[in-house]
């Protein structure tokens, strides 16, 4: 059965692994990459619990995606005897490993994981992401206690609902009501504590938030119930009170259910490696990144990240800054020049001397920008103004009914006022909001748009300007397409070029190699090859003198190049042959999506860190009238967003990468676009899968429908309130009426919210 599972997923290789349990795979996957894990300081940061023969460690493995992954990862102990036990958490994409440090080191463990295809993400931020778990548990405790008390109070109150006169239970009655009182105390003091705290902090800031009337209703209900019980005038409304608390807690929990495997609050620490290799007196020492000082020499291997601004000491640097600046092609950096933190080395290992500590480098300074200090204003919730009206109207009604009874029958003043406060509890409003937003978030999640929380939905609704990044957002990062333009190559010429590019490790050469690889060419011997760093390559093959490189490089060597565009130029035997144009592959449906957005009145802007070579294509894709800015630094993007906001616009930024991080944080709604994994998403309000970007307009529309759903349901809850009010103002609110009204209104609200948000989400699907 497992075989079938693995077979379907094309992962039969896993079988080869498990068929040889106990085989020591040492040395097979030895790599220098993880040497830093030998450092004790780094180990202490990662290992959660350690004894002489047992250590616990948790890794984030973004590659986990199917049942086979779980199977393989939970059978790691068969591959290496040093692993005692491993347990995965599918949704969080985590693995918890218990291992024996005397048999397998942390480094070997990570190498083993990388070997089987699950390279853990280990970053400077360390295991901070593990800490947030506990909050959720407390909420579950509160729900559990409230549920227990609510159901028992409900049961004990039952005789009251059915009896016509108070005397039915006779001598047993005090026992019932006092037990109710005892059971309601944990609800008041523990489960409902969140509402009191929130209401109190709101009031201290002179802000009447939605929790204030709720807290008031809870206190009044409890107070009146205690009074009735102690004076033996009635059974109180403790069932309603605990029920309200229970439902509202469930609603909040429903709304707060987050996407476990996503992290929305990443800063640069999540991108940078945990440790680096420092060269000191000819020896390699592994050091945690935070201890790196100015002047130290750091070794950066292939595919490793330059972790601090530094001066290049050796040749062969080929830095991919796509992540920092949004530029597509890697840049060759000459010896002695400065390399910036965040760049990834694509060539062979290089040595750099640190000139600025990690926290002060070009890219990390973005986080210290004063423009980012103001928090996004999430308090201006759509519900809050309503809750204020609600509270005023409520007090008005309470006051009027009080006045009325003062004139007619002063004996009824207090019962009438308290009844009004009990019945008109704004819990229906709160439930509507929490459940509707919870549902909308879930439906959006089904279409791979993952919002951080419900306040994002409220912010989306006010957006009038959308700013797009180009590289990685509108284009697909991994999809670069080459197109040849020029004199048609003969088979023999193609072979010559192919043979030369095969020799080079330059990513552009490799792209050309890939381009030819489909033609099944033979490879000829290259007689002579010279690499000019930052310019190109000259080689002799088959008797042809071949020049491959930039236009300037060819011109320099006497080959006249006309029509200068971005690309790799080919010259052969002193004549210009043609150019391999690097085409960005735009994601599908961008044009249609942008057209729809424009027709809905959104302003569209484009900010790119790349050169303006694509301007004409983009104008075709997005429309000529939109403002396009190129060669924007991360800081430029940030200030551009700021200036839009100063003009009074509500801005949504759609971007990826660290170069958008500042802008994503500054704007009103930041959407991070990502392909396949969740590796590199900067701090944002929502994460959108790249393939779904053509649906952005539908997502915005759907998020806005949330407000309509809330309005519809709110009208319904007003009807319930009016019915309750009818009884309350007449000072006739029996516990029976309260007990029936409360669950019916709650359940119908929850059901209606689910129904409406589902039916609206079908329009989301229809646009597919």
């Amino acid at each position, binding site marked *: 059965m*497992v075989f079938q599972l693995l077979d379907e997923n094309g992962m039969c290789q896993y079988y080869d692994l498990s068929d040889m349990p106990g085989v020591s795979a040492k040395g097979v996957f030895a790599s220098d990459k993880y040497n830093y894990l030998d450092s004790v300081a780094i180990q202490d940061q990662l290992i959660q619990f350690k004894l002489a023969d047992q250590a616990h460690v948790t890794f984030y493995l973004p590659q986990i995606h199917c049942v086979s992954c*779980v199977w393989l990862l939970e059978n790691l*102990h068969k591959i290496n005897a040093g692993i005692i036990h491993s347990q995965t958490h*599918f949704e*969080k994409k985590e693995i918890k490993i218990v291992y024996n440090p005397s048999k397998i080191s942390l480094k070997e463990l990570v190498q083993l994981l990388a070997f089987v295809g699950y390279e853990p993400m280990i970053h400077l931020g360390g295991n901070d992401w593990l800490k947030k778990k506990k909050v959720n*548990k407390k909420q*579950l405790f509160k729900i*559990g206690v409230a549920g*227990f008390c609510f159901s028992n109070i409900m*049961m004990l109150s039952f005789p009251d609902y059915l009896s016509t006169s108070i005397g039915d239970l006779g001598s047993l009655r005090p026992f019932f009501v006092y037990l109710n009182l005892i059971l309601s105390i944990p609800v008041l003091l523990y489960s409902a504590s969140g509402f009191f705290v929130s209401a109190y902090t709101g009031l201290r800031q002179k802000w009447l938030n939605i929790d204030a009337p709720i807290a008031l209703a809870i206190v009044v209900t409890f107070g009146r119930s205690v009074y009735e019980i102690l004076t033996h005038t009635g059974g109180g409304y403790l069932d309603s009170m605990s029920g309200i608390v229970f439902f509202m807690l469930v609603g909040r929990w429903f709304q707060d259910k987050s996407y476990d495997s996503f992290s929305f609050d990443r800063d640069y620490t999540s991108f940078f490696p945990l440790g680096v290799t420092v060269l000191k007196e000819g020896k390699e020492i592994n050091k945690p990144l935070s201890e790196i000082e100015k002047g130290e020499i750091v070794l950066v291997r292939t595919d490793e990240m330059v972790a601090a601004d530094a001066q290049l000491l050796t040749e062969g640097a080929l830095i991919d800054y796509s992540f920092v600046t949004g530029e597509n092609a890697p840049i060759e950096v000459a010896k002695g020049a400065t390399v910036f933190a965040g760049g990834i080395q694509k060539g062979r290992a290089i040595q750099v001397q640190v000139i600025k500590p990690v926290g002060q480098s070009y890219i990390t300074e973005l986080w210290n920008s004063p423009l980012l200090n103001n928090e996004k204003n999430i308090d201006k919730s759509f519900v809050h103004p309503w809750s204020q009206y609600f509270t005023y109207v409520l007090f008005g009604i309470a006051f009027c009914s009080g006045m009325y009874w003062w004139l007619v029958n002063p004996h009824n003043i207090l019962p009438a006022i308290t009844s009004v406060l009990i019945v008109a509890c704004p819990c229906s409003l709160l439930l509507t909001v929490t459940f509707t937003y919870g549902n909308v978030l879930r439906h959006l999640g089904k279409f791979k748009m993952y919002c951080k929380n419900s306040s994002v939905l409220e912010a989306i609704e006010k957006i009038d300007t959308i700013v797009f990044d180009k590289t990685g957002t509108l284009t697909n990062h991994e999809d670069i397409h080459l197109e040849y333009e020029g004199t048609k190559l003969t088979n023999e010429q193609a072979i010559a070029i192919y043979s030369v590019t095969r020799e080079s490790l330059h990513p552009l050469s490799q792209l050309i190699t890939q381009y030819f690889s489909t033609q099944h060419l033979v490879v000829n011997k290259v007689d002579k090859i010279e690499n000019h760093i930052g310019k190109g390559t000259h080689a002799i093959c088959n008797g042809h003198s071949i020049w491959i490189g930039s236009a300037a490089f060819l011109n320099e060597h006497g080959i006249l190049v006309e029509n200068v565009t971005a690309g790799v130029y080919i010259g052969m035997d002193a004549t210009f042959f043609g150019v391999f144009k690097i085409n960005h592959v735009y994601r599908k449906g961008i044009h249609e999506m942008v057209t729809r957005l424009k027709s809905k009145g959104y302003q569209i802007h484009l900010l790119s860190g790349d050169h303006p070579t694509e301007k004409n294509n983009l104008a075709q894709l997005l429309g000529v009238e939109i403002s396009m800015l190129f060669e924007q630094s991360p800081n430029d993007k940030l200030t551009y967003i700021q200036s839009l906001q100063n003009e009074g616009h509500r801005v949504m930024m759609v971007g990826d990468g660290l170069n958008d991080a500042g802008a994503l944080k500054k704007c009103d709604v930041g959407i991070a676009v990502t392909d396949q994994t969740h590796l590199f998403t900067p701090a944002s309000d929502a994460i959108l899968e790249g393939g779904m970007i053509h649906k952005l307009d539908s997502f915005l529309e759907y998020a806005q429908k949330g407000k309509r759903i809330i309005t519809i349901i709110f009208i319904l809850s007003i009807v319930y309130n009016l019915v309750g009010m009818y009884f309350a103002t007449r000072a006739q609110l029996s516990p029976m009426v309260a007990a029936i009204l409360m669950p019916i209104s709650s359940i119908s609200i929850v059901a209606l919210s689910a129904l409406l948000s589902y039916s609206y989400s079908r329009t989301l699907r229809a646009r597919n």
Partner: protein
Amino acid sequence: MSVLILLIIVSVLVAGGFLLAFLWSVKNGQMDDDYTPSVRMLFDDELKSTKKSN
């Protein structure tokens, strides 16, 4: 009728037992992962038997 007192105390205690069980399970981390156990259950017994329990 006074037997009701006894019955109600017993019923509240039983319910309290379930509450404690729930609180314990939350604390113990059983509510942390609501997906993986359902997958793990489907693995063959043979494989399961070699796997150490928590």
